[in-house]
Protein backbone atom coordinates (compact mmCIF):
# COMPACT_ATOMS: atom_id res chain seq x y z
CA UNK A 1 0.00 0.00 0.00
CA UNK A 2 0.98 3.58 -0.62
CA UNK A 3 2.20 5.56 2.39
CA UNK A 4 2.45 9.34 2.14
CA UNK A 5 4.55 11.59 4.34
CA UNK A 6 2.45 14.58 5.33
CA UNK A 7 4.54 17.62 6.37
CA UNK A 8 2.28 18.10 9.40
CA UNK A 9 1.29 14.57 10.42
CA UNK A 10 4.20 12.39 9.27
CA UNK A 11 3.88 9.09 7.41
CA UNK A 12 0.21 8.15 6.99
CA UNK A 13 -1.67 5.53 4.89
CA UNK A 14 -3.15 6.61 1.55
CA UNK A 15 -6.71 5.95 2.78
CA UNK A 16 -6.47 9.15 4.86
CA UNK A 17 -5.78 11.25 1.77
CA UNK A 18 -7.81 12.43 -1.18
CA UNK A 19 -6.12 12.46 -4.58
CA UNK A 20 -6.20 15.97 -6.02
CA UNK A 21 -4.91 15.34 -9.54
CA UNK A 22 -1.61 15.85 -11.30
CA UNK A 23 -0.26 19.38 -11.65
CA UNK A 24 -1.64 20.58 -15.01
CA UNK A 25 1.21 21.07 -17.44
CA UNK A 26 0.31 22.27 -20.93
CA UNK A 27 2.94 21.34 -23.55
CA UNK A 28 4.87 24.30 -24.99
CA UNK A 29 4.04 23.25 -28.55
CA UNK A 30 0.36 24.14 -27.99
CA UNK A 31 0.24 27.87 -28.70
CA UNK A 32 -3.40 28.67 -29.47
CA UNK A 33 -5.01 30.19 -26.38
CA UNK A 34 -8.24 28.20 -26.65
CA UNK A 35 -6.30 24.98 -27.19
CA UNK A 36 -4.16 25.74 -24.13
CA UNK A 37 -7.26 26.31 -22.03
CA UNK A 38 -8.79 23.04 -23.24
CA UNK A 39 -5.61 21.18 -22.42
CA UNK A 40 -5.28 22.79 -19.00
CA UNK A 41 -8.84 21.93 -18.03
CA UNK A 42 -9.16 18.38 -19.38
CA UNK A 43 -5.98 16.75 -20.64
CA UNK A 44 -3.70 14.58 -18.53
CA UNK A 45 -0.04 13.64 -18.82
CA UNK A 46 -1.05 10.35 -17.14
CA UNK A 47 2.61 9.29 -17.24
CA UNK A 48 3.80 5.76 -16.64
CA UNK A 49 6.63 6.90 -14.38
CA UNK A 50 7.36 9.82 -12.04
CA UNK A 51 4.64 12.45 -11.79
CA UNK A 52 4.01 15.51 -9.61
CA UNK A 53 0.58 15.74 -8.04
CA UNK A 54 -1.54 17.31 -5.32
CA UNK A 55 -3.01 15.44 -2.37
CA UNK A 56 -5.39 16.55 0.37
CA UNK A 57 -4.98 15.12 3.87
CA UNK A 58 -8.72 14.71 4.37
CA UNK A 59 -8.62 12.56 7.50
CA UNK A 60 -5.67 14.39 9.06
CA UNK A 61 -4.56 18.01 9.12
CA UNK A 62 -6.78 18.88 6.13
CA UNK A 63 -3.99 20.61 4.26
CA UNK A 64 -2.85 20.18 0.69
CA UNK A 65 0.56 18.84 -0.19
CA UNK A 66 2.57 18.31 -3.36
CA UNK A 67 3.99 14.88 -3.96
CA UNK A 68 6.25 13.17 -6.47
CA UNK A 69 5.13 9.61 -7.07
CA UNK A 70 6.15 6.83 -9.44
CA UNK A 71 2.95 5.58 -11.04
CA UNK A 72 4.69 2.44 -12.35
CA UNK A 73 5.25 1.17 -8.83
CA UNK A 74 2.76 3.38 -6.94
CA UNK A 75 5.47 4.57 -4.53
CA UNK A 76 6.47 8.07 -3.41
CA UNK A 77 9.84 9.24 -4.73
CA UNK A 78 12.13 11.75 -3.06
CA UNK A 79 12.27 15.38 -4.18
Amino acid at each position, binding site marked *: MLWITCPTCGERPVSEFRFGGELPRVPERITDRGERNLDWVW*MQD*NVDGVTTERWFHAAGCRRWLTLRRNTTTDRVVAG
Partner: protein
Amino acid sequence: MNEFVETLLDLTWHEPKKSYDVVIIGGGGHGLATAWNLATRHGMTNVAVLEANYIGSGNTGRNTTIIRANYGIAESVRFYQRSLELYRALEDETGCSIMHSTKGLLWLAHTESGMRAERARALMNQACGAETVMITPSEAQELCPQLDLSGGGRYPVLGASYHAGGATARHDRVVWAYAQGAMQLGVHVIPHMPVTGLLRDGSRVVGVQTAGGPISAGTVLSAVGGRVTTVAAMADLRLPIRTHPLQALVTNAYAQGFGPIVASSELLCYVSQTGRGQMLMGAEFDSQPSYSMASSYEFLQTVSTKVTHILPFLRNLRILRQWAGICDISPDYSPIMGFTGIDGLLITTGWGTWGFKAIPAGGEAMAELIATSKVPPLIAAFGLERFAADHAMADQGSAGTR
Protein backbone atom coordinates in the same frame (compact mmCIF):
# COMPACT_ATOMS: atom_id res chain seq x y z
CA MET B 1 -3.82 -18.31 -24.32
CA ASN B 2 -2.54 -21.85 -23.66
CA GLU B 3 -2.16 -24.86 -25.95
CA PHE B 4 -5.19 -26.60 -24.51
CA VAL B 5 -7.43 -23.71 -25.46
CA GLU B 6 -5.91 -23.41 -28.91
CA THR B 7 -6.86 -27.01 -29.73
CA LEU B 8 -10.50 -26.13 -29.07
CA LEU B 9 -10.48 -23.24 -31.49
CA ASP B 10 -9.89 -22.80 -35.17
CA LEU B 11 -7.15 -20.17 -35.10
CA THR B 12 -4.74 -19.42 -37.93
CA TRP B 13 -1.77 -17.31 -36.88
CA HIS B 14 0.01 -15.22 -39.50
CA GLU B 15 3.30 -13.43 -39.86
CA PRO B 16 2.60 -9.70 -40.23
CA LYS B 17 2.48 -8.27 -43.75
CA LYS B 18 4.11 -4.95 -44.68
CA SER B 19 0.80 -3.20 -45.21
CA TYR B 20 -2.89 -3.42 -44.28
CA ASP B 21 -6.00 -1.35 -44.92
CA VAL B 22 -6.66 -1.21 -41.19
CA VAL B 23 -4.30 -1.81 -38.27
CA ILE B 24 -5.90 -2.15 -34.85
CA ILE B 25 -3.63 -1.69 -31.84
CA GLY B 26 -4.81 -3.85 -28.95
CA GLY B 27 -6.04 -7.44 -29.16
CA GLY B 28 -8.63 -7.21 -26.43
CA GLY B 29 -12.39 -7.32 -26.72
CA HIS B 30 -12.83 -3.96 -28.43
CA GLY B 31 -10.01 -4.46 -30.94
CA LEU B 32 -11.08 -7.98 -31.90
CA ALA B 33 -14.78 -7.10 -32.01
CA THR B 34 -13.98 -4.23 -34.37
CA ALA B 35 -11.96 -6.59 -36.59
CA TRP B 36 -14.75 -9.18 -36.53
CA ASN B 37 -17.36 -6.57 -37.47
CA LEU B 38 -15.15 -5.22 -40.26
CA ALA B 39 -14.83 -8.73 -41.69
CA THR B 40 -18.42 -9.91 -41.23
CA ARG B 41 -20.44 -6.74 -41.75
CA HIS B 42 -18.30 -4.69 -44.12
CA GLY B 43 -16.28 -7.29 -46.03
CA MET B 44 -12.98 -5.73 -44.94
CA THR B 45 -10.48 -8.48 -44.23
CA ASN B 46 -7.16 -6.79 -45.01
CA VAL B 47 -6.99 -6.01 -41.32
CA ALA B 48 -4.39 -6.68 -38.65
CA VAL B 49 -4.89 -6.71 -34.88
CA LEU B 50 -1.60 -6.16 -33.03
CA GLU B 51 -1.45 -7.26 -29.41
CA ALA B 52 1.55 -6.62 -27.15
CA ASN B 53 0.93 -9.75 -25.07
CA TYR B 54 -1.48 -12.65 -25.70
CA ILE B 55 -4.99 -11.80 -26.87
CA GLY B 56 -7.35 -10.87 -24.07
CA SER B 57 -4.46 -10.40 -21.64
CA GLY B 58 -5.51 -6.90 -20.64
CA ASN B 59 -8.71 -5.70 -19.06
CA THR B 60 -10.87 -8.02 -21.16
CA GLY B 61 -9.46 -10.90 -19.13
CA ARG B 62 -9.56 -9.08 -15.80
CA ASN B 63 -13.07 -7.70 -15.42
CA THR B 64 -16.03 -9.03 -13.45
CA THR B 65 -17.90 -10.02 -16.67
CA ILE B 66 -21.09 -8.12 -15.92
CA ILE B 67 -23.27 -7.10 -18.86
CA ARG B 68 -25.90 -4.46 -18.15
CA ALA B 69 -27.53 -1.41 -19.68
CA ASN B 70 -28.95 0.38 -16.62
CA TYR B 71 -26.99 3.57 -17.08
CA GLY B 72 -27.91 7.08 -16.05
CA ILE B 73 -28.05 9.12 -19.26
CA ALA B 74 -30.03 8.47 -22.43
CA GLU B 75 -27.05 8.15 -24.80
CA SER B 76 -25.40 5.56 -22.55
CA VAL B 77 -28.56 3.52 -21.97
CA ARG B 78 -29.20 3.24 -25.72
CA PHE B 79 -25.60 2.29 -26.43
CA TYR B 80 -25.32 -0.33 -23.69
CA GLN B 81 -28.78 -1.71 -24.47
CA ARG B 82 -27.58 -2.31 -28.04
CA SER B 83 -24.54 -4.06 -26.60
CA LEU B 84 -26.65 -6.20 -24.29
CA GLU B 85 -28.80 -7.31 -27.24
CA LEU B 86 -25.73 -8.08 -29.37
CA TYR B 87 -24.31 -10.17 -26.52
CA ARG B 88 -27.52 -12.21 -26.45
CA ALA B 89 -27.10 -12.98 -30.14
CA LEU B 90 -23.31 -13.49 -30.07
CA GLU B 91 -23.35 -17.26 -29.55
CA ASP B 92 -25.62 -17.76 -32.57
CA GLU B 93 -23.67 -15.34 -34.71
CA THR B 94 -20.19 -16.70 -33.96
CA GLY B 95 -21.12 -20.33 -33.29
CA CYS B 96 -19.03 -20.20 -30.10
CA SER B 97 -20.27 -20.71 -26.58
CA ILE B 98 -19.48 -17.67 -24.48
CA MET B 99 -21.34 -19.05 -21.44
CA HIS B 100 -23.79 -16.16 -21.66
CA SER B 101 -26.29 -16.22 -18.83
CA THR B 102 -29.06 -13.70 -18.24
CA LYS B 103 -29.33 -13.40 -14.46
CA GLY B 104 -31.04 -10.11 -13.70
CA LEU B 105 -29.33 -7.39 -11.74
CA LEU B 106 -30.46 -6.04 -8.37
CA TRP B 107 -29.29 -2.55 -7.55
CA LEU B 108 -29.94 -1.98 -3.85
CA ALA B 109 -30.76 1.36 -2.25
CA HIS B 110 -30.16 1.95 1.45
CA THR B 111 -31.19 5.57 1.89
CA GLU B 112 -33.92 7.89 0.61
CA SER B 113 -31.45 9.63 -1.66
CA GLY B 114 -30.37 6.23 -2.94
CA MET B 115 -34.01 5.38 -3.66
CA ARG B 116 -34.42 8.64 -5.60
CA ALA B 117 -31.35 7.81 -7.65
CA GLU B 118 -32.65 4.29 -8.41
CA ARG B 119 -36.10 5.63 -9.35
CA ALA B 120 -34.47 8.12 -11.71
CA ARG B 121 -32.36 5.32 -13.18
CA ALA B 122 -35.41 3.09 -13.70
CA LEU B 123 -37.39 5.86 -15.42
CA MET B 124 -34.47 6.83 -17.64
CA ASN B 125 -33.92 3.18 -18.57
CA GLN B 126 -37.58 2.60 -19.46
CA ALA B 127 -37.63 5.74 -21.58
CA CYS B 128 -34.60 4.50 -23.53
CA GLY B 129 -35.59 0.87 -24.01
CA ALA B 130 -33.82 -0.91 -21.16
CA GLU B 131 -35.88 -3.06 -18.79
CA THR B 132 -35.42 -1.65 -15.31
CA VAL B 133 -38.17 -1.51 -12.67
CA MET B 134 -38.33 -0.53 -9.01
CA ILE B 135 -39.02 -3.42 -6.64
CA THR B 136 -39.76 -3.68 -2.93
CA PRO B 137 -37.41 -5.23 -0.34
CA SER B 138 -39.55 -8.39 -0.16
CA GLU B 139 -39.41 -8.77 -3.95
CA ALA B 140 -35.64 -8.35 -3.74
CA GLN B 141 -35.56 -11.05 -1.08
CA GLU B 142 -37.50 -13.38 -3.36
CA LEU B 143 -34.99 -12.85 -6.16
CA CYS B 144 -32.04 -13.25 -3.81
CA PRO B 145 -32.89 -15.24 -0.65
CA GLN B 146 -29.36 -14.74 0.72
CA LEU B 147 -29.92 -11.00 1.05
CA ASP B 148 -29.97 -9.50 4.57
CA LEU B 149 -32.65 -6.84 4.28
CA SER B 150 -31.45 -5.15 7.47
CA GLY B 151 -28.04 -4.68 5.85
CA GLY B 152 -26.31 -5.75 9.03
CA GLY B 153 -28.28 -3.02 10.80
CA ARG B 154 -26.38 -0.27 9.00
CA TYR B 155 -27.47 -0.52 5.39
CA PRO B 156 -31.16 -1.49 5.42
CA VAL B 157 -32.55 -2.32 1.98
CA LEU B 158 -35.28 0.24 1.28
CA GLY B 159 -35.85 -1.02 -2.24
CA ALA B 160 -33.97 -1.79 -5.39
CA SER B 161 -34.00 -1.24 -9.10
CA TYR B 162 -34.18 -4.53 -10.95
CA HIS B 163 -32.58 -4.76 -14.37
CA ALA B 164 -33.92 -7.99 -15.84
CA GLY B 165 -31.48 -7.95 -18.77
CA GLY B 166 -28.39 -8.03 -16.53
CA ALA B 167 -26.16 -10.91 -17.58
CA THR B 168 -22.70 -12.40 -17.35
CA ALA B 169 -20.52 -14.14 -19.92
CA ARG B 170 -17.15 -15.85 -19.82
CA HIS B 171 -14.74 -13.05 -20.80
CA ASP B 172 -11.99 -15.20 -22.36
CA ARG B 173 -14.54 -16.94 -24.54
CA VAL B 174 -15.79 -13.61 -25.85
CA VAL B 175 -12.23 -12.81 -26.94
CA TRP B 176 -11.78 -16.22 -28.56
CA ALA B 177 -15.15 -16.08 -30.32
CA TYR B 178 -14.30 -12.76 -31.95
CA ALA B 179 -10.69 -13.78 -32.70
CA GLN B 180 -11.74 -17.06 -34.28
CA GLY B 181 -14.52 -15.46 -36.33
CA ALA B 182 -12.23 -12.71 -37.59
CA MET B 183 -9.34 -15.09 -38.36
CA GLN B 184 -11.56 -17.47 -40.31
CA LEU B 185 -12.41 -14.57 -42.62
CA GLY B 186 -8.75 -13.68 -43.14
CA VAL B 187 -8.01 -11.06 -40.48
CA HIS B 188 -4.45 -11.28 -39.15
CA VAL B 189 -4.33 -11.37 -35.36
CA ILE B 190 -0.73 -10.98 -34.25
CA PRO B 191 0.04 -11.50 -30.56
CA HIS B 192 3.31 -10.54 -28.82
CA MET B 193 3.77 -7.64 -31.22
CA PRO B 194 4.11 -4.42 -29.20
CA VAL B 195 3.62 -1.15 -31.07
CA THR B 196 6.55 1.17 -30.35
CA GLY B 197 5.61 4.17 -32.48
CA LEU B 198 3.31 5.56 -35.13
CA LEU B 199 4.45 6.25 -38.70
CA ARG B 200 3.66 9.81 -39.77
CA ASP B 201 3.42 11.48 -43.14
CA GLY B 202 3.18 15.14 -42.21
CA SER B 203 0.42 15.24 -39.64
CA ARG B 204 -1.25 12.08 -40.96
CA VAL B 205 -0.78 8.68 -39.29
CA VAL B 206 0.12 6.16 -42.01
CA GLY B 207 1.09 3.09 -40.02
CA VAL B 208 2.71 1.69 -36.94
CA GLN B 209 6.25 0.91 -35.87
CA THR B 210 6.37 -2.46 -34.12
CA ALA B 211 8.94 -4.67 -32.49
CA GLY B 212 8.89 -6.63 -35.78
CA GLY B 213 9.35 -3.63 -38.08
CA PRO B 214 7.12 -0.96 -39.64
CA ILE B 215 3.62 -1.79 -40.90
CA SER B 216 1.78 0.74 -43.04
CA ALA B 217 -1.96 1.18 -42.75
CA GLY B 218 -4.77 3.18 -44.31
CA THR B 219 -6.36 3.60 -40.91
CA VAL B 220 -4.94 2.99 -37.45
CA LEU B 221 -7.32 2.35 -34.57
CA SER B 222 -6.11 2.45 -30.99
CA ALA B 223 -8.19 -0.02 -29.01
CA VAL B 224 -5.65 -0.01 -26.19
CA GLY B 225 -6.70 -0.34 -22.55
CA GLY B 226 -4.82 1.28 -19.64
CA ARG B 227 -1.76 2.41 -21.63
CA VAL B 228 -3.69 4.44 -24.21
CA THR B 229 -2.02 7.71 -23.17
CA THR B 230 1.34 6.28 -24.25
CA VAL B 231 -0.03 5.31 -27.67
CA ALA B 232 -1.75 8.68 -28.15
CA ALA B 233 1.46 10.50 -27.22
CA MET B 234 3.15 8.79 -30.20
CA ALA B 235 0.96 11.04 -32.36
CA ASP B 236 1.24 14.07 -30.03
CA LEU B 237 -2.41 13.48 -29.15
CA ARG B 238 -3.45 14.60 -25.67
CA LEU B 239 -6.19 12.66 -23.89
CA PRO B 240 -8.26 13.42 -20.79
CA ILE B 241 -7.60 9.90 -19.52
CA ARG B 242 -6.32 8.85 -16.10
CA THR B 243 -5.21 5.28 -15.58
CA HIS B 244 -6.47 3.82 -12.31
CA PRO B 245 -6.15 0.24 -11.06
CA LEU B 246 -9.35 -1.69 -10.40
CA GLN B 247 -9.27 -4.76 -8.23
CA ALA B 248 -11.49 -7.81 -7.95
CA LEU B 249 -11.59 -11.09 -6.05
CA VAL B 250 -13.20 -14.51 -6.09
CA THR B 251 -13.98 -16.82 -3.19
CA ASN B 252 -14.03 -20.59 -3.14
CA ALA B 253 -17.11 -22.27 -4.58
CA TYR B 254 -20.46 -21.57 -2.91
CA ALA B 255 -22.41 -24.79 -3.08
CA GLN B 256 -25.84 -23.17 -3.42
CA GLY B 257 -27.02 -21.23 -6.40
CA PHE B 258 -26.78 -17.47 -6.29
CA GLY B 259 -29.18 -16.25 -8.94
CA PRO B 260 -28.87 -12.56 -9.71
CA ILE B 261 -26.07 -10.04 -9.81
CA VAL B 262 -26.27 -7.85 -6.69
CA ALA B 263 -24.89 -4.32 -6.55
CA SER B 264 -25.17 -1.33 -4.29
CA SER B 265 -24.36 2.26 -5.19
CA GLU B 266 -24.04 3.41 -1.63
CA LEU B 267 -21.77 0.56 -0.58
CA LEU B 268 -19.94 0.74 -3.93
CA CYS B 269 -19.69 -2.99 -4.55
CA TYR B 270 -21.06 -5.71 -6.81
CA VAL B 271 -21.33 -9.48 -6.42
CA SER B 272 -22.13 -12.33 -8.78
CA GLN B 273 -21.52 -16.07 -9.02
CA THR B 274 -19.21 -17.48 -11.68
CA GLY B 275 -19.90 -20.60 -13.72
CA ARG B 276 -17.66 -22.52 -11.32
CA GLY B 277 -19.74 -21.41 -8.34
CA GLN B 278 -17.18 -18.97 -7.02
CA MET B 279 -18.45 -15.66 -5.70
CA LEU B 280 -16.93 -12.85 -7.74
CA MET B 281 -16.89 -9.32 -6.39
CA GLY B 282 -15.43 -5.93 -6.91
CA ALA B 283 -15.66 -2.36 -5.69
CA GLU B 284 -14.60 1.04 -6.93
CA PHE B 285 -11.26 1.72 -8.58
CA ASP B 286 -8.22 2.87 -6.58
CA SER B 287 -8.29 6.60 -5.86
CA GLN B 288 -4.87 7.43 -7.28
CA PRO B 289 -3.81 6.77 -10.90
CA SER B 290 -1.21 4.05 -11.25
CA TYR B 291 0.07 1.49 -13.73
CA SER B 292 0.88 -0.93 -10.93
CA MET B 293 -1.11 -4.15 -11.02
CA ALA B 294 -0.31 -4.91 -7.40
CA SER B 295 -3.23 -6.24 -5.39
CA SER B 296 -3.75 -4.85 -1.92
CA TYR B 297 -4.83 -6.26 1.41
CA GLU B 298 -6.78 -3.02 1.98
CA PHE B 299 -8.98 -3.88 -1.00
CA LEU B 300 -9.84 -7.25 0.56
CA GLN B 301 -10.68 -5.54 3.85
CA THR B 302 -12.82 -2.87 2.22
CA VAL B 303 -14.77 -5.11 -0.10
CA SER B 304 -15.31 -7.84 2.52
CA THR B 305 -16.69 -5.31 4.98
CA LYS B 306 -19.06 -3.92 2.36
CA VAL B 307 -20.43 -7.12 0.90
CA THR B 308 -20.96 -8.93 4.19
CA HIS B 309 -23.33 -6.16 5.28
CA ILE B 310 -25.80 -7.17 2.60
CA LEU B 311 -24.79 -10.81 2.01
CA PRO B 312 -23.77 -12.25 5.39
CA PHE B 313 -23.29 -15.80 4.00
CA LEU B 314 -20.09 -14.57 2.33
CA ARG B 315 -18.45 -14.59 5.79
CA ASN B 316 -18.33 -18.39 5.60
CA LEU B 317 -16.42 -18.42 2.32
CA ARG B 318 -12.68 -18.05 1.78
CA ILE B 319 -11.00 -15.62 -0.58
CA LEU B 320 -9.32 -17.66 -3.27
CA ARG B 321 -7.74 -15.15 -5.58
CA GLN B 322 -7.49 -11.42 -6.18
CA TRP B 323 -6.15 -9.45 -9.11
CA ALA B 324 -6.03 -6.00 -10.63
CA GLY B 325 -6.34 -4.37 -14.02
CA ILE B 326 -5.47 -0.85 -15.11
CA CYS B 327 -8.45 1.13 -16.42
CA ASP B 328 -8.52 4.15 -18.70
CA ILE B 329 -10.90 6.43 -16.80
CA SER B 330 -12.38 9.43 -18.59
CA PRO B 331 -13.33 12.55 -16.62
CA ASP B 332 -17.07 12.06 -17.24
CA TYR B 333 -17.12 8.26 -16.82
CA SER B 334 -18.22 7.80 -20.43
CA PRO B 335 -16.21 6.23 -23.25
CA ILE B 336 -14.33 8.19 -25.91
CA MET B 337 -14.89 6.80 -29.41
CA GLY B 338 -14.28 8.10 -32.90
CA PHE B 339 -12.03 10.59 -34.66
CA THR B 340 -9.04 12.10 -32.91
CA GLY B 341 -8.45 15.20 -35.00
CA ILE B 342 -5.41 13.45 -36.50
CA ASP B 343 -5.95 12.00 -39.99
CA GLY B 344 -5.63 8.23 -40.12
CA LEU B 345 -5.89 7.72 -36.36
CA LEU B 346 -9.09 6.63 -34.66
CA ILE B 347 -9.56 5.83 -31.03
CA THR B 348 -11.78 3.81 -28.75
CA THR B 349 -10.86 4.44 -25.14
CA GLY B 350 -12.14 5.68 -21.81
CA TRP B 351 -13.56 2.24 -21.16
CA GLY B 352 -12.71 2.53 -17.49
CA THR B 353 -14.67 -0.06 -15.55
CA TRP B 354 -17.46 -0.40 -18.12
CA GLY B 355 -15.61 -1.81 -21.13
CA PHE B 356 -16.51 -5.51 -21.13
CA LYS B 357 -20.26 -4.96 -21.43
CA ALA B 358 -19.64 -2.56 -24.32
CA ILE B 359 -17.54 -4.88 -26.48
CA PRO B 360 -20.15 -5.91 -29.11
CA ALA B 361 -21.65 -2.44 -29.60
CA GLY B 362 -18.26 -0.73 -29.42
CA GLY B 363 -16.86 -3.08 -32.04
CA GLU B 364 -19.91 -2.68 -34.24
CA ALA B 365 -19.80 1.12 -34.08
CA MET B 366 -16.04 1.43 -34.62
CA ALA B 367 -16.17 -0.95 -37.58
CA GLU B 368 -18.97 1.11 -39.13
CA LEU B 369 -16.93 4.27 -38.57
CA ILE B 370 -13.85 2.76 -40.23
CA ALA B 371 -15.81 1.33 -43.16
CA THR B 372 -17.96 4.39 -43.88
CA SER B 373 -15.89 7.25 -42.41
CA LYS B 374 -19.13 8.45 -40.80
CA VAL B 375 -19.73 8.49 -37.06
CA PRO B 376 -22.70 6.18 -36.28
CA PRO B 377 -25.49 8.06 -34.43
CA LEU B 378 -25.25 5.61 -31.51
CA ILE B 379 -21.78 6.89 -30.58
CA ALA B 380 -22.00 10.47 -31.88
CA ALA B 381 -22.19 11.86 -28.34
CA PHE B 382 -19.02 10.05 -27.27
CA GLY B 383 -16.41 11.74 -29.46
CA LEU B 384 -13.19 13.22 -28.10
CA GLU B 385 -14.33 16.62 -29.41
CA ARG B 386 -17.05 16.78 -26.73
CA PHE B 387 -14.55 18.19 -24.23
CA ALA B 388 -13.73 21.17 -26.45
CA ALA B 389 -17.48 21.69 -27.04
CA ASP B 390 -18.16 21.51 -23.29
CA HIS B 391 -20.53 18.58 -23.75
CA ALA B 392 -19.16 16.19 -21.16
CA MET B 393 -21.35 13.10 -20.81
CA ALA B 394 -21.26 12.79 -17.01
CA ASP B 395 -22.88 9.47 -16.15
CA GLN B 396 -23.59 8.54 -12.56
CA GLY B 397 -24.63 5.06 -13.68
CA SER B 398 -21.09 4.36 -14.86
CA ALA B 399 -17.95 3.25 -13.09
CA GLY B 400 -19.50 -0.02 -12.00
CA THR B 401 -21.16 1.50 -9.01
CA ARG B 402 -20.32 5.16 -8.85
